[in-house]
């Protein structure tokens, strides 16, 4: 049975419910059931991942439900204690909504996007034997902004009931005749209308580089475009970091920061050396300022995994470790938030933005010795080629039993290559660059896991070392020791997997793809 979609009719003048009852007679009677006011708050992640999956997250009457933006079907509600400004899916009670939101949002928080008040009259559509065959909702919608209420629109919504297709067709036709075809909206359009009225731009954030660079543009212009993009990502994530909404804000901020630094170091000559030096230094300092905070986040995210690594009797002793981590995180968050709010930081970023905007309009004096004037495509081919050769050369030189240092260094080489491929992806055909990135990604995952496991162990050793000055806690020490053993075993697995993974990457197929890419 095809799902009958909810349909709506917009009326900017408001909805007169007086005219409705006669509309469907004699086949159906309209029975007024309820008049009420309802406040609905809409939530989504910073990246709009629920909307991307055609889902709206609605909190009303102390319950949360998921609305399918295609069919208009709403899940059964789950009770919620309050209407928070943001929450993590993991904090919900177990059930379908939690599972779905964990799938849609992962570790991202759901943030309140807007609140709407509905002045609503509910009607039942009754057939000759008084069976309900559908519902009509006549609503006047208001946007709630603090204490203010702002009228948005009048809306008539037809919610069909399963199995009553004939009535649905008849009712929707009558409504269309009454309100006009042009006022008919689907559920998704109503959602967009609400967001637009609230001044919320749906899908306004995407951390993936989607710039369309021009191959013949001077590389200075392309670099400025890319750097403005990473600058924008950093700025957009600042408030989420300060508000401690979820750990991805800091993560994405740091990725943008690394991309910025990578561009500055790999695209030589795009700006005068003193400028490059100044900003490389400034961005490196920012990175250092948030390292400790990110480390805390990583540990907190691994909390459940760590507990599961150990037998329950030992795992329980990790509690004070995580409690202390929580306190350290608070301190680090405060410190970094103060920095993000500081005048020095804001001025630096503003000056950086001005410099990049200037570079877009005045790309420099045309002269042969100015590397910033080189065509973007030539620079892309040259730098990617160089980075590619470096990865292959270093990777091949690693013996069967790879050392920590060798794998650390190769990881950095791979990262540089990956960034270049991402920066310049729009200059190359997707069918060639896509597979290269895919092959590289697999290698990076192996190296990333290896290095992460090494760093985690290192940090745990550091923590054990710091325990010497604290009251003795042999249970915690043994739990941390157990954890190090587990992490070490996993790290060794990754080390063993390296040669096999590298061979999969360094093969004829990838080489052909890269050659094709660079000899375009």
């Amino acid at each position: 049975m095809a799902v009958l979609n909810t349909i709506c009719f917009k009326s900017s003048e408001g909805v007169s419910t007086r005219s409705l009852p006669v509309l469907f007679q004699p086949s159906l009677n309209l029975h007024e059931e309820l008049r009420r006011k309802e406040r609905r708050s809409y939530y989504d992640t910073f990246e709009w991942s629920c909307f991307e999956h055609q889902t709206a997250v609605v909190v009303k009457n102390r319950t949360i439900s998921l609305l399918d933006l295609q069919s208009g079907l709403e899940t059964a509600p789950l009770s919620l204690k309050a209407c928070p400004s943001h929450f993590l899916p993991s904090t919900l009670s177990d059930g379908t909504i939690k599972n779905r939101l964990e799938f849609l949002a992962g570790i991202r928080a759901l943030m309140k996007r807007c609140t709407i008040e509905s002045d609503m009259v509910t009607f039942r559509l009754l057939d000759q034997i008084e069976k309900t065959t559908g519902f009509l909702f006549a609503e006047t919608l208001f946007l709630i902004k603090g204490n203010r209420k702002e009228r948005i629109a009048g809306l008539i919504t037809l919610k069909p009931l399963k199995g009553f297709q004939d009535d649905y067709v008849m009712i929707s036709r009558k409504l269309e005749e009454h309100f006009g075809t042009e006022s008919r909206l689907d559920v998704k359009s109503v959602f967009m209308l609400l967001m637009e009225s609230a001044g919320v731009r749906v899908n306004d954030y995407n951390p993936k580089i989607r710039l369309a660079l021009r191959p013949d543009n001077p590389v200075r212009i392309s670099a400025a475009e890319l750097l403005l993009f990473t600058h924008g990502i950093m700025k957009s994530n600042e408030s989420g970091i300060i508000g401690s909404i979820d750990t991805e804000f800091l993560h994405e901020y740091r990725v943008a920061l690394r991309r910025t630094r990578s561009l500055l170091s790999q695209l030589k000559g795009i700006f005068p050396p003193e400028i490059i030096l100044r900003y490389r230094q400034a961005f490196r300092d920012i990175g250092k300022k948030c390292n400790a905070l990110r480390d805390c986040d990583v540990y907190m995210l691994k909390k459940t995994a760590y507990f599961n690594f150990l037998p329950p009797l030992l795992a329980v002793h990790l509690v004070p470790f995580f409690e202390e981590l929580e306190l350290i995180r608070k301190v680090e968050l405060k410190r970094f938030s103060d920095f993000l709010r500081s005048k020095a930081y804001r001025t630096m970023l503003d000056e950086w933005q001005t410099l990049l905007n200037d570079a877009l309009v005045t790309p420099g004096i045309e002269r042969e010795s100015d590397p910033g004037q080189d065509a973007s495509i030539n620079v892309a081919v040259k730098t990617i080629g160089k980075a590619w050769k470096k990865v292959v050369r270093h990777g091949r030189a690693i013996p069967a039993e790879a050392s920590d240092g060798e794998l650390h260094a190769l990881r950095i080489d791979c990262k540089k290559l990956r960034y270049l491929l991402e920066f310049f992806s729009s200059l190359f055909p997707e069918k060639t660059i896509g597979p290269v990135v895919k092959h590289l990604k697999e290698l990076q995952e192996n190296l990333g896991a290896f290095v992460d496991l090494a760093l985690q162990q290192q940090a745990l050793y550091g923590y054990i070392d710091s325990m010497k000055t604290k009251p003795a806690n042999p249970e915690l020490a043994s739990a941390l020791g157990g954890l190090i053993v587990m992490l070490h075993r996993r790290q060794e697995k990754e080390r063993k997997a390296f040669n096999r993974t590298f061979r999969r990457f360094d093969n004829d197929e990838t080489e052909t793809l890269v050659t094709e890419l660079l000899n375009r």
Partner: protein
Amino acid sequence: MKTIALYSIKGGVGKTAAAVNLSYLASRDSLSTLICDLDPQGASSYYFRIAAGEKYNSTKFLQGSKKIYRNIKATDYDQLDLLPSDFSYRNLDLELLEEKKPQKKIRKNLEELSDEYRYIFFDCPPNLTLFSESIFAAADIILVPVIPTTLSIRTYEQLKGFFESNGLDSSKIKAFFTMVEKRKSMHRDIIESCESQPDFLKQSIPYNSEVEKMGLYRAPLNAVLPSAIASKAYQRLWSELSEAVLPAV
């Protein structure tokens, strides 16, 4: 998905009233629920004011999930859908005979609905046939309303005997007393004699004329008169079922 068959060899014991009210109560817990009216008399369909589509019949029912799904209709209550009965269901036994594995047919046909519904209630016809056997195989619980009279108890024992002699899982059978009139000593004595039997639920449904009026209301009693004595008893019965019996199956 948990399936609960309201079943009795005897007629007029309150199967439909129990199926309608218990399924309504299940859906009130915000759990998507389906009630399948399997009785050709179509009493539960009538209570919910729903009739099957003109093209729906017993053959479609035996054809399986898609055909079944297409004929499910929403009741007036959120989270509660109904698969209406059709008079052609009286032929189900004959049609089942044509099937390769008739006993497993209903279970197989309802498999795909498990994604959509947490509970499926069967309102069964009063007989003991091949169709009943197919229902026994499909149900997680066979819930038997028993009037505290000698004949009713005898019929209940016959059912258990049938399970044992046919190698069926009799632990699925749970009984509860219905139409109880505490002023009658026979009712009191019979209930007392069954108290220690683990297959009998603790909650019982008293005789209440309001239950008979469901035919006038054409709605679950718990929806229109939640304070009625019988409504409260159904509520307690559902609590016992959902908290103590169903989690264990």
